[in-house]
């Protein structure tokens, strides 16, 4: 079982995996953490602490009654000094809990290894852990692990593709905590009664493949698949196709083809959590970019302000002009260094003046490169034309909602047109129009 596999479309991006050999360094406790109440896809949490409360490590400080949500825990021990709305880089306000740390890192009394004897209890335990997809999207893990009863899940795909440039956080997990990765896989396999596990890793990480291969030999249920390094190999639908040759139908979920996809960091966390009961309060973050003095992998407490993490890495060589949370292909540009590291932050990248210039868009020459590059087989330039004209019918005809926003179209465009940006706009317009129609 050692084949190179790929999907259609995509593009070759530079790897910039400068930090691949940087062992994870633990960062200390900052004086203050700010923990936003939304760190996942879904409903925001309601803060359940007030100004003046003392909190301990692992204590729940925010939760939601909604199914698609995940509780938020304190990553430190200390005193709540404020609960106030905070502007997130996604462009919306959510309440954030500000905690002044006492440095003692006292663990909350309620922390103990979870007990479960069936799927239902296991999934509740996972919910309590606050786990979200650690690959970057932040989809609540307990939702992912509870497919509708009529969907039979037969395959677990483990995402170690890490196709975004710069980021090495998944890679370091495989190298440093391979045993946790594999025991996490076994836990999920057992509880969900899955007999087929495929670990997909891009071929630019031979050491990671080697480590996983060794473990692969221990079980005939687990196999490692070497994937061609091609962006966006780690996108859920592309990864499922590359590893299982199954196509997730448009608008459907992996469960519809019997697959659950989990990031290596997510399964590794599950293993750790089952042992200790400590919820998700820390994250390995790749800190890199032309502006960073000492790039590396840092284990950061959730809620740590971004500037503290950069300080920990020796600060900046030149003042950054653009700071990203996530990779350069899909990461979110941050408006301030005071924002915090959240659960699904896998990288913090700082770019200097030169590398953060936004290229000027020219006229579309209809070269078709965006069409070849689109892994979803869409025609980005037609979507672009219709998005700027807000032509809802045409947007639907060109399948705007199938766009996964990977950014390949914008990346390859020789005229430097902001294609994916306009496609996001198109998706929003379609949603708006549908809502208006439904409202009538």
């Amino acid at each position, binding site marked *: 079982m050692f084949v190179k596999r790929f999907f259609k479309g995509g593009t070759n991006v530079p790897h910039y995996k400068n930090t691949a050999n940087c062992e994870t360094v633990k960062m200390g406790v900052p004086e203050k953490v700010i923990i936003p109440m939304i760190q996942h896809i879904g409903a925001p949490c309601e803060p359940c602490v007030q100004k003046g409360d003392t909190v301990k490590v692992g204590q729940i400080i925010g939760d939601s009654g909604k199914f698609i949500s995940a509780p938020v825990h304190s990553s430190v021990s200390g005193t709540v000094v404020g609960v106030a709305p905070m502007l997130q880089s996604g462009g919306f306000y959510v309440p954030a809990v500000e905690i002044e740390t006492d440095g003692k890192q006292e663990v909350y009394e309620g922390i103990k290894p979870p007990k479960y004897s069936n799927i239902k209890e296991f999934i509740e335990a996972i919910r309590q852990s606050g786990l979200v997809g650690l690959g970057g999207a932040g989809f609540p893990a307990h939702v992912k692990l509870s497919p509708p009863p009529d969907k039979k899940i037969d395959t677990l795909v483990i995402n170690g593709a890490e196709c975004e440039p710069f980021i090495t956080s998944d890679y370091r997990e495989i190298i440093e905590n391979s045993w946790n990765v594999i025991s996490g896989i076994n836990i999920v396999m057992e509880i969900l009664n899955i007999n087929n596990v495929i670990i997909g890793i891009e071929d630019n990480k031979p050491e990671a493949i080697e480590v996983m291969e060794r473990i692969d030999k221990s079980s005939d249920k687990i196999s490692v698949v070497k994937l061609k390094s091609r962006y966006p190999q780690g996108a859920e639908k592309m990864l499922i196709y590359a590893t299982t040759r199954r196509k997730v139908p448009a608008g459907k979920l992996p469960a519809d083809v019997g697959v659950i996809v989990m990031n290596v960091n997510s399964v590794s966390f599950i293993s750790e959590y089952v042992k200790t009961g400590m919820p998700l309060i820390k994250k390995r973050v790749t800190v890199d970019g032309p502006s960073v003095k000492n790039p590396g992998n840092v284990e950061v407490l959730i809620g740590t302000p971004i500037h503290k993490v950069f300080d920990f890495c020796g600060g900046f060589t030149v003042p950054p002009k653009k700071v990203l949370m996530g990779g350069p292909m899909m990461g979110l540009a941050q408006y301030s260094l005071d924002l915090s590291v959240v659960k699904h932050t896998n990288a913090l990248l700082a770019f200097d003046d030169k590398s953060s210039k936004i290229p000027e868009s020219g006229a579309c020459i209809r070269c078709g490169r965006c069409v070849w590059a689109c892994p979803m087989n869409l*025609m980005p330039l037609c979507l672009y034309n219709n998005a700027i004209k807000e032509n809802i019918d045409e947007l639907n005809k060109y399948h705007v909602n199938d766009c996964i926003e990977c950014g390949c179209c914008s990346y*390859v465009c020789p005229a430097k047109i902001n294609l994916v940006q306009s496609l996001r706009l198109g998706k929003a317009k379609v949603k708006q129009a549908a809502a208006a129609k439904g409202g009538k």
Partner: protein
Amino acid sequence: MEDRLTVSSSPHIRDKANTQRIMIDVVIALLPATFAGVYFFGTRVLLVVMVSILSCVVSEYLSRRIMKRSNTISDFSAVVTGLLLALNLPPTVPLWVAAVGSAIAIVVIKQLFGGLGQNFVNPALGARIILMISYPGFMTNWVKPGVDAVSAAASGVDAISSATPLQIMKYGASIADLPSYGELFWGNIMGCLGETSAAALLIGAVYLFARKIISPEIPFAFIGTTALFTWIFGGTTLFTGDFLFHVLAGGLLLGAIYMATDYATSPMTVKGRIIMGIGCGLLTGIIRLFTNYTEGVSFAIVLMNIMVPLIDRYTIPKSFGGEKAVA
């Protein structure tokens, strides 16, 4: 304000490829054909090329300026149009005809329809057809390779006028007058100054494929269809046509590799491109064999150019895991 961070939409890195580089690549790919033209028809060819390019660039600059639009001559697309038009002219063409044609290509066909990427037919071909209708004499005044085109031009329109291989094939007295495949391949024949040497055009094609500037669907479908059509219907009985002759003679290679693949006027999907290529091939075959014209590549491409929006409309691809859209 100085230390504010830039907030922009992802992706935050871009590929190095840009429009200018693509256009320069096309110019590089056309250089062998240009030099072949100079080799066979003399240094006057260079003058025609230079006048065409200059006229295109000046027209682009002035028309953009008059329309109060941004200056776009640095994208090199006008240079490509000028060069392509020049390669589609007879070696004896008066320089003012080349200049007028270039101005028509840029102003009328390209800029009046919105500029780069918006033209509905290939500008160089559109201009060539207008020139052929306006100045049929100048546009069909062929010379033998090796004959000095300057003196040919000076000595009057019909002085050395002779027939192209396709004309000999269609109206010639004897098959013996036809050039050999070797002459056709190397370019030692009469014709437009850039279309005669198949060898030079193929070198450029290899470069374009290697640089991934063009994809193979249109050239292969176009040339293949023309070959098949002329093989079936080109002879005295069915399936006896001299298809190799039809591939090498006339403007087929120049058209199929460099003109039909023009981004703005060709479909974007693989399926659409194959349809475009087959359509061009069929029309070329029909015009060459069943009309009074000896050459049909220009008309075929321009007719298919007009079909492109329709082809695009009916070839919207199925999205990954999606249902096919109803057009």
